């Protein structure tokens, strides 16, 4: 018996020699080749798990002891909330030499969510805009504006577009700032009057909205079931790529409307109670390597924040203004700040009333 116990105790350090890192990322959001390469080059076993909503990630991290070593929260609201709650480990920059290759201007834009960029580095980024199935939209609304939020938020255009189907992402935190911006208000406004205007604008187009998508937007779009979608840039661009592969003649385009499109960043971060922080840093540093990062962008069609990847990006992706927007478009992008709890509740109520109005 005692011998058995001794063996068991000896087995523990032997098992610990297999280094592991537990990564928790969005679904459909990595280059499978990068995973294989990381394991081969570092000898660290990568356990990869996915989520499809920030709420799940936030819930797990705020409860503590999630067991994950690397997570990828979006700058607002999740990343900033995790930073404020002390749920993330400050990153040891000495262990992240590749972070020097990050675009300073983009990192500066995330600093509103994470003062001094202490807790995260940009993984991928994008905007929130419109996905359009041009052929079907032309059939029902040939003269509707294409570069403006008016297409969706003006009832007369929305009514026309509704005949070929409008899908909106089911995400108050993403849509409400966009409507505020469209109305000429601050996207962070918690003012009751501003929110009432947002509600009025949304309710006016509610009958035109066929469905609310959480995660499933790519499929409905690629299948050609809807012709106007309010969603993340990369989702539309992925859907366009899938539609092309399917070869059924469905052509999709991403539009970042001229009134302004919300910019977001997905951040690589380490939970405070991560069981393997050293391996987590190694993983993040590996991901930030230009050749690895280029492979990820080529796979998932979201832009990264490492300028040195430019030469390795496939020409059709590098030349797509939806993925890499031209400078004059980028000037119109906006970021949002943290939402205080009371405002968050007011917004989620507004959202529930809006959806229920159909």
């Amino acid at each position, binding site marked *: 018996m005692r011998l058995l116990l001794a063996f068991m105790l000896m087995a523990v350090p032997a098992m610990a020699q297999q280094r592991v890192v537990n990564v928790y990322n969005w679904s459909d959001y990595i280059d499978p080749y990068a995973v294989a390469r990381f394991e081969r080059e570092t000898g660290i076993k990568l356990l990869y798990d996915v989520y499809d909503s920030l*709420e*799940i990630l*936030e*819930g797990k*991290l*705020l*409860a*503590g002891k999630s067991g994950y070593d690397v997570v990828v929260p979006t700058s607002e609201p999740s990343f900033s*909330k995790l930073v*404020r*709650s*002390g*749920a993330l480990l400050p990153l040891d920059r000495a262990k992240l030499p590749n972070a020097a290759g990050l675009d300073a201007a983009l990192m500066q834009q995330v600093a509103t969510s994470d003062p001094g960029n202490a807790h995260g580095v940009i993984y991928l980024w994008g905007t929130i805009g419109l996905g359009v199935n041009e052929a079907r939209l032309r059939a029902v609304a040939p003269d509707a504006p294409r570069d403006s939020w008016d297409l969706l938020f003006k009832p007369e255009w929305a009514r026309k577009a509704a005949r070929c*189907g409008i899908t909106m992402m*089911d995400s*108050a*935190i993403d849509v409400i700032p966009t409507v505020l911006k469209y109305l000429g208000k601050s996207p962070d406004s918690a003012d009751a009057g501003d929110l009432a205007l947002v509600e009025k604008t949304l309710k006016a187009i509610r009958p035109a909205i*066929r*469905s*609310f998508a959480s995660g499933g937007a790519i499929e409905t779009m690629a*299948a050609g*079931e809807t012709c106007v979608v309010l969603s993340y840039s990369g989702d539309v661009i992925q859907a366009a790529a899938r539609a092309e592969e399917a070869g059924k003649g469905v052509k999709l385009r991403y539009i970042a409307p001229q009134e302004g499109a919300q910019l977001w960043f997905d951040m690589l971060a380490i939970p*405070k109670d991560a069981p393997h922080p050293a391996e987590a840093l190694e993983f993040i540093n590996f991901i930030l390597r230009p050749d690895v990062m280029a492979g990820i962008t080529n796979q998932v069609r979201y832009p990264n924040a490492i300028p040195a990847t430019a030469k390795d990006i496939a020409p059709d992706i590098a030349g797509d203004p939806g993925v890499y927007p031209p400078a004059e478009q980028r000037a119109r992008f906006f970021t949002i700040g943290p939402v205080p*709890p009371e405002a*968050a*509740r007011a917004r*989620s*109520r507004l959202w*529930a*009333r*809006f*959806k*229920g*109005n*159909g």
Partner: protein
Amino acid sequence: MRWLLGPSWVWLLLFVAAPAAILAGIGLLNPADTVPPLAGPIGLGGYGGLADPFYLRACLGSLAVAAVTAALCLLLGYPMALAIARSARRRLLLLLVMVPFWSGILLRLIAWIGIFRDEGLLNSALRALHLSAEPVPLLHSDATMLVGMVYCYLPFLILPLEARLATADRRLEQAAADLGAGPWQVFRRVTFPLSLPGVRAGLALVAIPVSGEYVIPELLGAAGTPLIGRVIWDEFFQSGDWPQAAALATTLLAGVLLPAALLQRRRPR
């Protein structure tokens, strides 16, 4: 023999009473930017916010859905339970009622999405029959949600009801018929009253979980139907207010348990 009950008491204490007590306790705290997102002092906490009419509406909405689902399950399930109880192939039929449990509920709901969606089975059939040129939007409506609810919870009504019907004394029905009662009268005056405990158990087994159901309305229901399950989810995940969510969940639990306990008490022994 009393000690045999021990394990079930331990089970109840560890996995029912303790989590419920923790939940009720979280409701007494306040939200905060910490891990976990809770802070003292202990006070009214989330219970103070319960008076919001928004919550009451969601509760009533959920109760209405639970009542309609339970009623539909009874209408559909009673004839099925009776037929199974009287069938020579009773075991096989009971097995068939339970077959759906062998696969995950999510998988089965996604199959329903495949039936109802715009390019789905039903719409393809409508088009093939030239009944409709444009796809009829079927998914994400109250009707689709009820189909999903009834589909998922029907076995919970059939099983206890069938057990009761199968063990009822058939000689009472024969006596009623011998004394001149027609088939309808036999059913109304003898079979149905005898099956009432089964009906009650079945209705409770359907209505209680349906009143807090989250997954089915989320996948099949209309976007806006405000149900209490979704409201609790929103408070927890969207507003990040754990005490409010916990207070709501505790109140819902109490609101469901009390009538169930009363029902149990009134049951004839």
